């Protein structure tokens, strides 16, 4: 029998259709791997019974030659997506015991297309973090280690459960979300492919909100083809999300392998930041050479507002979060303090007990920047800069088709290494936040390894709704880079 965990999602899909393997077999194989990988702490909730039921239903369809695009394929779901009848935590204590009676649009789409739900993946609390260390359910451990070193490393964040689970082959693929880099940075740190689609491409309905104008769901996958298949199954217009765009979803898989000859690739000089490891610099240069060799035209571009992206992000995102998280008050669902005398102490103690430090920090920042007397200086100004960042990209994309940058400023770092300094942690998103601020599609593709054997990714950014060109470029990099090592299963 085929070893399920050796297959990519696309290979498994084809094997299921060819009846080389059943969905129940694949599901059981993954459930066993999940069980064995407990030290990685990737799953908050494993839905074994549900998974087997869904797999059985898929097998019945497959037996009749029916079924959707990913019929029978077992998936991991970031615990930010509400799943009907399955506890949804957003990695936070404040949602303790919360079980939605509804299914997010993204997961509905996946199940309609035949996906099987293995469970809910660990993440930074409310998707606020770059190392998965802010989760109430404990940090996730990266399956990757430095060569000859047992020190546990971060899988990135906030979608660290998703990146680690895909890297450790605990699911065929996973959903993730990206508000400032939460798909692309963890992908870069785990040798996986992460795609943040254009804002509006994927419905936000049923996804626990962090920063509404920046949040976008996307896939975390083993390779570019898998990401293409996943995105197609996740995306689409949703009348329940006013910011979702009514445009047809292309067949992203169909463009893979198409020539990128003649594409203009922008290389922004402002992404060459101080203190960037030489290996990342070299990888970027290597990426540029690969594109050149593939017949692309390299265009040096300038995005001078890049240096304002992180400051703008750390005003806009906390501002929206401070308002989005007001609903977690202990009144309706989730955690409620036992220690209260009146409504005010109920609020205060519930929120004090329910939120972790990073979430509290961002609520404080957000509340501050929206306060009377500070709004104009912070929020309003940040929005103006954000608009100019968008304009700057629009201008750049009048000259180039894709922009190539590193995905993250470093390889996976040690757990606990950056927790003491929030600003150091925030710098993880330096290459990715711009894409969120401008609403652009962006992706991280495995491209190489550092001296310690840790994976490094390259990022491609594309015009809004031009994921197809992005996928072409991603596939080209993947083919030439051949960075398809897998981590040794030290945990099993």
């Amino acid at each position: 029998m085929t070893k399920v965990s050796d297959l990519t999602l696309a290979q498994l899909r084809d094997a299921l259709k060819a009846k080389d393997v059943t969905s129940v077999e694949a599901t059981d194989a993954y459930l066993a791997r999940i069980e064995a990988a407990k030290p990685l702490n990737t799953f908050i909730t494993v839905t074994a019974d549900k998974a087997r039921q869904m797999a059985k239903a898929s097998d019945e369809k497959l037996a009749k030659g029916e079924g959707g695009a990913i019929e029978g394929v077992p998936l991991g779901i970031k615990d930010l997506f509400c799943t009907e009848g399955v506890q949804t935590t957003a990695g936070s204590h404040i949602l303790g015991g919360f079980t939605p009676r509804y299914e997010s649009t993204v997961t509905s789409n996946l199940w309609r297309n035949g996906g099987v739900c293995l469970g809910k993946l660990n993440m930074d609390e409310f998707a606020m973090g770059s190392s998965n260390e802010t989760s109430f359910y404990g940090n996730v451990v990266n399956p990757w280690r430095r060569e000859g070193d047992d020190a546990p490393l971060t899988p990135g964040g906030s979608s660290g459960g998703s990146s680690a689970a895909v890297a450790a082959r605990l699911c065929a693929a996973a959903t993730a979300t990206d508000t400032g880099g939460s798909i692309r940075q963890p992908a870069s740190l785990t040798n996986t492919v992460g795609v943040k689609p254009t804002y509006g491409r994927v419905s936000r309905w049923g996804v626990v909100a962090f920063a509404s104008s920046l949040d976008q769901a996307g896939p975390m996958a083993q390779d570019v083809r898998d990401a293409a298949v996943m995105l197609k199954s996740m995306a689409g217009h949703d009348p329940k999300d006013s910011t979702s765009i009514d445009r047809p979803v292309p067949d992203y898989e169909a463009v893979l392998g198409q020539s990128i000859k003649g594409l203009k690739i922008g290389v922004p000089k402002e992404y060459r930041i101080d203190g960037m490891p030489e290996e990342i610099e070299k990888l970027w240069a290597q990426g540029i050479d690969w594109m050149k060799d593939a017949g692309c035209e390299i265009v040096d571009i300038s995005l001078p507002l890049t240096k304002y992206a992180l400051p703008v992000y750390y005003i806009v995102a906390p501002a929206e979060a401070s308002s989005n998280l007001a609903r977690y008050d202990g009144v309706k669902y989730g955690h409620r303090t036992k220690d209260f005398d009146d409504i005010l102490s109920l609020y205060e103690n519930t929120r004090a007990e329910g939120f972790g430090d990073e979430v509290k920090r961002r609520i404080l920042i957000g509340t501050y920047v929206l306060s009377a007397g500070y709004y104009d200086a912070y929020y309003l100004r940040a929005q103006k800069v954000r608009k100019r960042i968008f304009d700057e990209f629009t201008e750049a994309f009048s000259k180039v088709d894709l922009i190539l940058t590193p995905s993250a400023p470093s390889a996976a770092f040690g757990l606990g290494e950056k927790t003491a300094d929030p600003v150091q942690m925030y710098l993880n998103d330096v290459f990715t936040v711009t894409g969120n601020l401008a609403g652009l599609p962006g992706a991280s593709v495995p491209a190489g390894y550092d001296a310690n054997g840790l994976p490094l990714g390259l990022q491609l950014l594309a015009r809004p709704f031009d994921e197809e060109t992005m996928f072409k470029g991603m596939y080209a990099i993947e083919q030439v880079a051949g960075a398809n090592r897998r981590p040794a299963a030290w945990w099993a």
Partner: protein
Amino acid sequence: MSETRKLLRGSTGDWEVVIGLEVHAQVTSKSKLFSGASAEYGAGPNENVSLVDAAMPGMLPVINEYCVEQAVRTGLGLNARINLWSRFDRKNYFYPDLPQGYQISQYKDPIVGEGEIEVELDGGETIMVGIERLHLEQDAGKSIHDLAPKESYVDLNRSGVALMEIVSKPDMRSAEEGAAYFTKLRSIVRYLGTCDGNMEEGSMRADVNVSVCRAGNYDKFRETGDFKYLGTRTETKNVNSIRYVRQVIDYEARRQIEVLEAGGEIDQETRLFDVKTGETRTMRSKEDAHDYRYFPDPDLLPLEIDPAWVEEIRASLPELPDAKKHRFMDDYGLSAYDASVLAADKASAAYFEEVVAKCDDGKLASNWVTGDLFGALNKAGKTIEETPVSAAQLGELISLIKDKTISGKIAKDVFALIVEGEESGAPGDIVERRGLKQVTDTGAIEKVVDEIIAANPKQVEQVKEKPKTMGWFVGQVMKASGGKANPQAVNEILKKKLGVE
């Protein structure tokens, strides 16, 4: 301007009161502003609550286009500018009946801008009141604190229901004007069908802003637009009847003058009206005022309206009270007051027009409708929709007066018979059946006159000296004829026979 009637006398001099109203009018819609839940009144606790209204994680608002249309309709009815680009903001504060922790409202960019309406006062005077803006927002739920000793209950049925907040300019200068404006606003939204105006169910309520200033300062404010000429205002929240609006203004004006004359200062604060005492009291002082941290709601796109759609809505508007009032004045020669009373309510106006169509006499019809009919309805506690006298009946009755079939007096009797339910059907048939037809046969009247003159020689003597006493004879003749004698004919015959000039 010499507007002495607006002056309030204090112990240290004269004061003026300045009033602005923020009226919350619930949009008459099947579902809520941002969710599909029913907006109907009267459901059991928490029966009309969607996932969005309960602010479940990951839920998103989607604008209800029908509510937007009603806001535009109302804006047009207020002769106001429709903003083709507007936006929703979040107003952040914590309260258990506000599940999201913020209210979605329109702060900087409302859907409707400035407008102006005519407001009729009791004395027949008409004033203009400016509209500052109208915006759409969500209502909150309802907290109930008296069902249990320690717990509070929350009913989210209202949570998310669409409200239009209509903000006036500080153009009202007395309790009467404030009440008249509120009345007029209610009339307009009811005409438009955009709000049912039902104050008991909370469909319409006013936040009443009152300030006082020294006599003359209001004019300076009007000239310069500088608010420094006006006093500090207080805002009395959630006043839900026209009578209470009047009371709040009277009470606040008096209270503020007393405070100021005693050397005190008015705090810019939010107050509550106690319907039992008729007084207002502090609810929240300025220091406790929330910082609402307004910012554009990132879950919603800006509201962009096609001007062609606005024109479509404009073309579908009914004739509004002001237009109707002016038409009644022009076409039927009614006074501004009568015309506005009739036009204030759509059903009354329609009734009046049906009466006119039947009798072709606007003035008589107006007198009958505003006098006899409204009086009878008032007495019976009935609305125009429940009238015991149909417009067709009243129209025919007036026609019978006009063609002299009956006198005005008999008409009132017939009207009363119908009101009391003793008669029904066509007034002409009632008159026929009861033998109430006016006697214009001079022979018959002469016969009665002769009899009365013969029987009352003393009065005949008297009338020669004092011609005015002829009225006694008129009465006697009318009585003898059972009121059916044509009064004009009676007069003429009596004059001739008594030799009165």
